[in-house]
């Protein structure tokens, strides 16, 4: 427990054991403030909710297999899509990225822990109990049936009578506090605890993206929290913030929500950009092409993403000038994203590519995220969105970004870092099965959704008319979901089995270049015996190539 405060370079490996619970015991895991254990707990939490959210998705897909089908109907279906969205965004996407960040940011910058270890533990438990609060609503007679963006005034007591909506809002407030705690911690850690010699422009790219993700967390989550508190005031203390019949404003909620909601998308993708920017160079055996431009593009995305929120609201009847503003800002954000993509391609170009599992998932990320980005450009065309908004095309688009982008990238990260976290390799054969089932199942699920959307199918409908011609596309989608399902099972199985029986990894199985690979796998609780001194962005490259080190070529 005292490890975090330790500042000398003299390691005291047994300090924790002497004073705290026995390492590895349940009590140790429950009371830990070690960033690595907390990181793992974040990841376990996300995987648990990933399974829950996945089952919710499968139930919905089965209901939509046939028109006018009667499997899960009406409010149960409406609750399913609300919980699926809420779960995947707040309790899978964010925690898994924060968890990986928690584990690796201190290791990558040569620190012994996060800046505020106890705050770190608070963040984890707030996220977990926030999730439980939201799920307690099932015990009150039904989960909230609002949609994950919960448009007012559906959230008013008039339209949602039971306590489910209150639990939903409370849960998100609590987990939001945990997320903010995480953001503060990353910023303090990255700004204040870098190894000697590691200037802010020499941090590994993943660390850089975590810094900007944390900035977005600090700017975006508070408006959501404020809005959720207003919902609770409306519902329980007779306020009228969103109650149009009493002078409130329904549209204000939309602005508040999306002012959070769009930066949120980048909270979910920037760390992934960071991970692939670590993995692609290592598996191409080349330095990241154009680090400075990549770094600037990340900043650009973080800032511009604060000014695009109303592209979720093109159909609310804004003036044409307002529409145009948000069209322009949305299109502009595609430029830094494009820069990143080209730099990844340039990094691979001329390299010597190895296609072990991390790179395989990076390939999945690159080939799929591109499509999600391009449908994003289509949706930036406001008039086109007058047609496509709230259809399955939009559902396809953001799943293509969140699965094709975030999920494939996160799997790449997990396959890349699992050896460091456990000291063992994940099984490559299972990884290939997982990858191809996911890749094919994913395309089959969400590809046809573009078409059902263009054929006029609105989202969030628990059933559809037989005469609309949507059945075929929905059936393809459902079959795709059924193909995806086993890929997740294989992944979980791989994680469990390899933990004990995987091939021993050694310190640096991928021959990578950043500091986390300079310590043991798994790292001891104090991370590094000696705080390393850094001269470039690839300290281990310098170590290996003393005659031709990186710092000769890097310029800031």
């Amino acid at each position: 427990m005292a490890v975090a405060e330790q500042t000398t370079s003299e390691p005291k490996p047994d300090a924790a054991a002497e004073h705290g619970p026995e390492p590895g015991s349940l009590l140790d895991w429950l009371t830990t403030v070690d960033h690595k254990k907390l990181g793992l707990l974040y990841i376990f939490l996300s995987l648990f909710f990933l399974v829950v959210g996945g089952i919710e998705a499968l139930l919905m897909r089965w209901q939509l297999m046939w028109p006018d089908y009667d499997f899960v109907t009406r409010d149960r279906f409406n609750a399913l899509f609300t919980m699926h969205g809420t779960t995947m965004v707040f309790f899978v996407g964010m925690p898994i990225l924060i968890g990986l960040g928690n584990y690796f940011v201190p290791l990558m910058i040569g620190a012994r822990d996060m800046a505020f270890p106890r705050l770190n533990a608070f963040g984890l438990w707030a996220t977990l109990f926030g999730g439980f609060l939201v799920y307690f609503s099932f015990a009150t007679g039904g989960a909230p049936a609002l949609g994950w963006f919960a448009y007012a005034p559906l959230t008013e007591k008039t339209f949602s009578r039971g306590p489910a909506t209150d639990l939903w809002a409370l849960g998100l407030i609590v987990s939001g506090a945990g997320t903010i705690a995480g953001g503060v911690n990353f910023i303090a850690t990255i700004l204040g605890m870098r190894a000697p010699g590691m200037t802010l422009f020499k941090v590994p790219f993943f660390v850089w993206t975590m810094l900007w993700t944390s900035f977005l967390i600090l700017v975006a989550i508070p408006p959501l929290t404020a809005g959720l508190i207003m919902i609770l005031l409306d519902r329980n203390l007779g306020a009228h913030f969103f109650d149009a019949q009493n002078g409130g404003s329904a549209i204000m909620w939309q602005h508040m929500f999306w002012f959070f909601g769009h930066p949120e998308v980048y909270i979910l993708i920037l760390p992934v950009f960071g991970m692939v920017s670590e993995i692609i160079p290592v598996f191409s055996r080349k330095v990241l092409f154009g680090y400075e431009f990549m770094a600037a593009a990340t900043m650009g995305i973080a800032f511009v993403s604060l000014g695009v929120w109303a592209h979720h609201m093109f159909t609310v009847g804004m003036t044409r000038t307002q529409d145009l503003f948000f069209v322009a800002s949305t299109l502009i954000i595609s430029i830094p994203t494009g820069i990143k993509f080209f730099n990844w391609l340039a990094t691979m170009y001329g390299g010597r590519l190895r296609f072990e599992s991390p790179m395989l998932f990076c390939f999945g990320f690159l080939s799929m995220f591109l499509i999600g980005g391009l449908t994003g450009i289509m949706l930036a065309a406001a008039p086109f969105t007058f047609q496509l908004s709230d259809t399955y095309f939009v559902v396809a688009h953001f799943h293509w970004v969140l699965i094709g982008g975030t999920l494939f990238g996160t799997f790449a990260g997990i396959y890349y870092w699992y050896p460091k976290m456990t000291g063992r390799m994940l099984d490559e054969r299972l990884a290939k099965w997982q990858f191809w089932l996911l890749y094919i199942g994913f395309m089959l699920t969400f590809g046809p959704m573009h078409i059902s959307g263009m054929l006029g199918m609105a989202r969030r409908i628990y059933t559809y008319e037989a005469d609309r011609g949507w059945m075929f596309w929905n059936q393809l989608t459902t079959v795709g979901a059924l193909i995806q399902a086993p890929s997740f099972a294989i992944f979980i199985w791989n994680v469990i089995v390899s933990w004990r029986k995987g091939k021993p990894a050694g310190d640096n199985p991928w021959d990578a270049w950043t500091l986390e690979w300079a310590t043991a796998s798994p790292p001891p609780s104090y991370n590094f015996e000696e705080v390393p001194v850094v001269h470039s962005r690839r300290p281990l490259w310098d170590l290996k190539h003393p005659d031709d080190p990186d710092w000769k070529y890097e310029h800031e």
Partner: protein
Amino acid sequence: MSGVILMRSMLLLAVGESARQNVSIFDPASPQAESIRNLGILVLAITGGIFLVVEGILFYTMFRFRRGAPPGPLVPNPDPKVPPPVTVEPAGTSPEPPQVYGSKPIEIAWTAAPTLVVLILLLVITRTLWEIAPDRPEPHEGDNALFVTVIGRQWWWEYRYDHYNGRPLGFTTANELHIPVGRDGKDYPVYLTLQSADVCHSFWVPRLAGKTDLIPGRTNHMTFHTATAGLYVGQCAEYCGTQHAKMLLRVNAQPSEEFESWLRHEEQPATDVETVREDKHVFLKQSCVNCHLVRGTEKDTPARRREYAPDLTHLMSRKTLASGIIVNDVKTLRDWVRDPQNIKAGCLMPAFGLSDRELDSVVRYLLTLR
């Protein structure tokens, strides 16, 4: 990997299938929807082009530079400042490829190219935005324009007919919108005023126009016109609660004479049919009239014109019930009146526990509301 191209060809196949309700956004029946379609195709073409180029480079790179690929000619060095290949071979590893740290000219080039595409897109989007902007002229005689206020309700549509060709109308109907179609190059524009009585809804008939939301406390507008008669369907496109999926839209576009005769008929109060006098009495005694209005009956007072439920004055002129989800005939009407929750669970009309005789009477009376 199928991508946009395959998607588009499949789309054409799907649209080609017949004998079903067409709700494709690529089959517009109004200049507004057509304008969006044209923009959509342009944007699809541009993004499709980017897709092919970038995905092509990705696959080429993946294949060409995989480990174990036959050694080809060395990659041309894009930047003379770049160091030569590293020759030191650490124990146990193969030599590393040349390390290229970046190149300012290249970065500038691939920043400029997307910027240009963005600029072009911005220009065409702006044009379309203003092309389809809803306008709001004052109704005047000779404009052939129809003004309707659409009120979204959980889970049906109320239509208040305001003006036609400059003439004030002032009757209300539900769920089936009737509009005139243009003829001989003359447009019959439709101006919708969109409001909501409860939560957010969205009016979306894909072949006529893009969607616009109906938001409580706010008034939105929509403009379109069509030259093709027929039935256009759609549905509420903003999640609005339990029966959001069953809040369907039907727009009947009719030749102007047909439309005008429908209009004249709808304006009339309900006709009194001698044979159902007794049944009418039974109907008016029930609580139906607390929410539903039948114009011309003794319950038709200004205080009752607040309409919480569909206006029934000309119920039988409508082809469907419950916001387009079932055909309106004797049997379904009777089932609906007996217990709406069997048909559209969660809807705001409860079952009133009418006796069979009362039920028969109510239905007999409703059947005369032509």
